């Protein structure tokens, strides 16, 4: 785990990632606090904090006596959240770097088109 962000945030992001890439399906049981703590070798309280972050946002739901489950519609909700954050997380730092090295917006759009074509995203 890297030191950049709080550990519990990283735990939450990792579960989000699994939901987004489908390795954790909706309605499926999510890893428990103790499983996360043992796997990452962290204090269970930290793991619980990460899970609670997802419960608060409706990504995970608690089923009494059974554990934590991925909520119905969780993947789409996460995708929508990420779309809203896309500009802040990716475009703002990209524009800062572009200004540094003297790339114009036109240059960026040109590069973006080329890369999109290479990676198969079409307009």
């Amino acid at each position: 785990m890297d030191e950049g962000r709080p550990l519990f945030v990283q735990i939450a992001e990792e579960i989000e990632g699994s939901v987004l890439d489908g390795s954790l399906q909706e309605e499926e049981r999510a890893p428990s606090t103790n499983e996360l703590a043992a796997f990452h070798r962290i204090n269970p309280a930290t793991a619980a904090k990460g899970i609670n972050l997802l419960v608060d946002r409706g990504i995970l739901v608690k089923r009494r006596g059974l554990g934590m489950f991925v909520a119905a519609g969780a993947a789409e909700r996460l995708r929508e959240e990420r779309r809203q954050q896309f500009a802040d997380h990716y475009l703002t730092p990209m524009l800062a770097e572009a200004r540094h090295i003297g790339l114009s917006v036109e240059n960026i759009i040109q590069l973006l088109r080329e890369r999109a074509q290479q990676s198969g995203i079409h307009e």
Partner: protein
Amino acid sequence: MSGNTAGQAIEVRSVTRRYKNTTALDDVTVSFGKDAIHGLLGRNGAGKTTLMSIITAQLWPSEGQVEVFGQTPHENEQVLPKICFVREDQRYPEDALAKHAFKAAADAYENWDWDFANRLIADFKVPQKTKIKKMSRGQKSAVAVIIGLASRAEVTFFDEPYMGLDAVARQLFYDRLLEDYAAHPRTFVLSSHLIDEIAHLIENVVLIDGGRILLDEPVEDLRDRAVTIVGRADAIAEFTTGREILHEETMGRIARTTVLGALTEAEQQRVRELDLDLQPVSLQQLIVRLTTRANAENTAEVQS
């Protein structure tokens, strides 16, 4: 605060402990929350072992009170069986084998678990026929660690017994500690100066220096205690004016400065405008910086 609502396992109030010419603990007030893993950190001679010895009733305080589960532990047959204190310089009878030490522990602690102990004995490859006195430092440490874990005491202190363990055995210890804590929540206090190794295991940090408590906080809150800023020295100087600087290094026109306190949203915005980088401060770095600062202040007090 200890991140749970289970209350306090240990309360230390205004405890002072003097040896002949030195004050090992100076008016220490601190508490340890129930069912949490605490880190007791500090330099050698800071007072860690003295504090643990007083809480576990192996030493009397010169002044002040200690309570474990609401009762004074000293000469208290109700509380003492709930407390396990494992220390690096643990002494054993002359001819004792490991099994004798485990038997004694099994008799002393009501929650002792032989299945768990035997699993640990196999994990740590404790020799059966070697007298403890003749064991290597690592083997002795393993015996001590096994007693600390398998006793399942409600309060367990580890005073760096794992220092004798090599990296592989230490990892084994951390893994077994976390597993068993998850299955049987109880109160642990780990003293260590391998701070980064235990940073993710502990929920709370108590930092002691020169017999005084410098810090007593949840680990997660400590992330906001300080931040390191890297970039052009003139921009950093402008940004850090009026802030308390914990540490400063420069290389040519580049500086790396650690300041105390979290940055506001506006300050983070300013950092981006000035094109500076923010780096988190690891627990180890923070502890070193805070201890260094405390020592500098003490020196200044003496001089003035």
